[in-house]
């Protein structure tokens, strides 16, 4: 096989792996909520106003 084509295929596989990994991380790995840590306090004023208190 042409050496250039061989290198290009290797680069293609590496790039494809990186891309798929990024897509997987973006959609399927839950990010750490640096600010809230599952805190929902910022929704509190909204809930209060909707409950009319």
């Amino acid at each position, binding site marked *: 096989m*042409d*050496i*250039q*084509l061989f*290198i*290009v295929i290797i*680069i*293609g596989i590496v*790039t*494809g792996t*990186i*891309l798929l990994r*990024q897509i997987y991380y*973006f959609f399927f790995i839950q*990010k750490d*909520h*640096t*600010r*809230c*840590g599952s*805190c*929902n*306090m*910022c*929704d*509190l*004023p*909204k809930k*209060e*106003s909707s409950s009319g208190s």
Partner: protein
Amino acid sequence: MRLSELQTGQKAYIIKVNGSGAFRKRILEMGFVRGEEVKSVLNAPLKDPIKYELMEYEVSLRRSEAVMVEIAMLEEETREKTSSQEVVQEDDMIEPVTISQSNGSGDFRTDHSRSSQKNIKVALLGNPNSGKTSIFNLASGAHERVGNYSGVTVNAKEGTLKHNGYSFTLVDLPGTYSLSAYTPEELYARKYMLEEKPDVIVNVVSASALERNLYLTTELLDLQVPMVIALNMYDELEKSGRTFDHETFSTLINTPIVPTVGKRGEGIPQLLEKVIAVYLTKGREPIQIPYGRVLEKSISIMERELHREVGNWEMPLRYVCVKLLEGDKEVESRIRTLPMREQIFTRRDKERSYIEKLLREDPESAFTNARYGFIAGGLKETLTEKIHFAEKTKLLDSIVTNRYLGFPFFFLFLWVMFEATFRLGNYPMEWIEWLVATLGNLIRENMAEGPLKALIVDGIVGGVGGVIVFLPNIVILYLFIAFMEDSGYMARAAFIMDKLMHKIGLHGKSFIPLIMGFGCNVPAVMATRTIESRSSRMITMLIVPFMSCSARLPVYILFAGAFFPERASLVLLGLYAFGILIAAFTARLFRRTLFREEETPFVMELPPYRMPTPKSIITHMWDRSRQYLQKMGGPILVASIVIWFLGYFPQDWKKNAVFEAEATQVEARFGDSEISRTERDLLLADIAHSRNTAHQENSYIGKIGKFIVPVMRPLGFDWKISVSLLSGMAAKEIVISTMGVLYTGDSEDQQSLQTRLQAEAYPDGSPVFTPLVITGFLLFVLIYFPCIATIAAIKEESHSWKWALFSVFYSTGLAWLIALVVHQLGRLFQ
């Protein structure tokens, strides 16, 4: 009399703050308490909001909010009389704090069990703009963003350092005026303090507005946390000619105080020493803020009521009682989970009525007044009067917030920013362009033909090289943004824009994330955390993507430079202005349809002007350059390679052979002298162009382009433009790198992308890029799909995919509609 009636330059004394809820609590905490002197400094250019001075700092309020504050204009003599009466009242209310009450900052009993543990978790907490991040950066060697306005830090950042054999984990928390917080980042700071339980808290107190900054300290004292006070910006206090006996004050509150100058790193080693000392201290005797007879009685009743119920809570019982009496929402919601809740709330309400009846003010005001009373008492003994008054801020404000000069100055600043970004950036841009072209030609001339050569030359050099040339422009843009943030002008811009923002249903505070959006939309979306109201926060978050970020700048510069070289700056300014208009339209639309809640008041601190240090500016620019280059090596490189692959494959070997045969035929005809050299060159160029076109159209990317082109054709875009826009969804710079790969040109030499775009034509010879197409294209790039990182940030901040997807569809739909209108209307006038 109301505060809004106070004329510019006049002084008065606060009697009472009316109203209820977050606004009232916030301004009470910011020092609008009974007996405090307030001065009306100036009006914004549109007469609203108004800048007031109190407790030696400046704050802006709208007229509609200033109406809520009752004031009295008093003669000096009357004032003296009244204040002496108030002192009697205060004395009656607050038991004097005697130095013997506490054992001072130096008396620590060493906790030997801790001597062996050498990791100390330190949280930096303080008022917004008190210089926490400067201390954090200096101590930990980090490069976190600092700025001269409130709310630069919107989440916790961690850094580590070693000192005297101890390793420190520093956590830089968002600024907060108090622990009864209302904004998300303030709530976060409080939650962090209570749940993460750092070993030591460094309470950063700005020496330039000591009285107001110490309010948070009183709350931390109530919370009985191990604490060291960093008296930051101490140089500003010294410059004003004042002296502060911080040692006596330290003894008074039984907490060590270390003067620091964060920007120069002065006092940091001493601060770390004190942190170690406090860490090793066992059972520091806590002092209690004396709230006066009436409040103390209610606190002790509530303590008796609650001591069995909340004994295992992570906060002291006294603190819970104070917060419950104040009506703190979070404490109330926790109490509601207790079995004895009915009884507790009945008792609490009874005590609140008792306080209101006896003190003739609500418990919130009573506690705030008592805390400020305690601070005033302590400072009276330790802080001398100001001798030198800084006129710099007043002088500059008289120009940049002037009724007639404010707006022209702001727009002049923006114009200079874009002019410098384009004109100045053009010189280094040309050098980098030359370097990229030289590199491309070097590879072209010295490498054997084949797919790897094509990947390097057309994919990597063409794609990444096409984007990297804009690095100087990005650096210059950030220079201006850093100057705006560090000098204090950012807060003034918000101040003068408030009235206009008010008209679109937002307030001046929303203007700061919007300006930040010119740099990058991601931190801008995160900066919306400083906005108290959820509806205003959501609207701001959704309009931030219309602020032209620096990733879009390369696209503008490329096209403006190639097709409108004489009016490039004007084109840039026009695009930014159009983005602002779209944002304003969207905000108004959303306020009327999706978010009809009442907007929040505009209470914003106006920091004094500070000359940005060269180090801070250079650090900012360097960080941005590094990020940009990292992007080149990461997503842009990956995208360029992917686009190249999609464009290079599949190879039609049969068609290639036909084109090669045609080229050989031409060479043979030239060899037989049937055609001249010029004719040969023309024929070969024609064959190369046909081959390129046929290959690209049959490639995978060509097929994708052909698939989406029916949607984009009404906008005047061909399939290559359509594909570039599609790939630009990942990051806007990829529009350029994709064009760099797709518009390879037929020349044997490496040409700049600008030249290749100018030469691009349809088979009939008509240019692809007409002024009308370019206008529609630039507007489309401005408005459509925010990049993936921004979508992720919107999802994180809104806690919902719904709003992230809404932003995607709304912006892309609007972009399509506007580009369609521009193209179709433009054609009528052609």
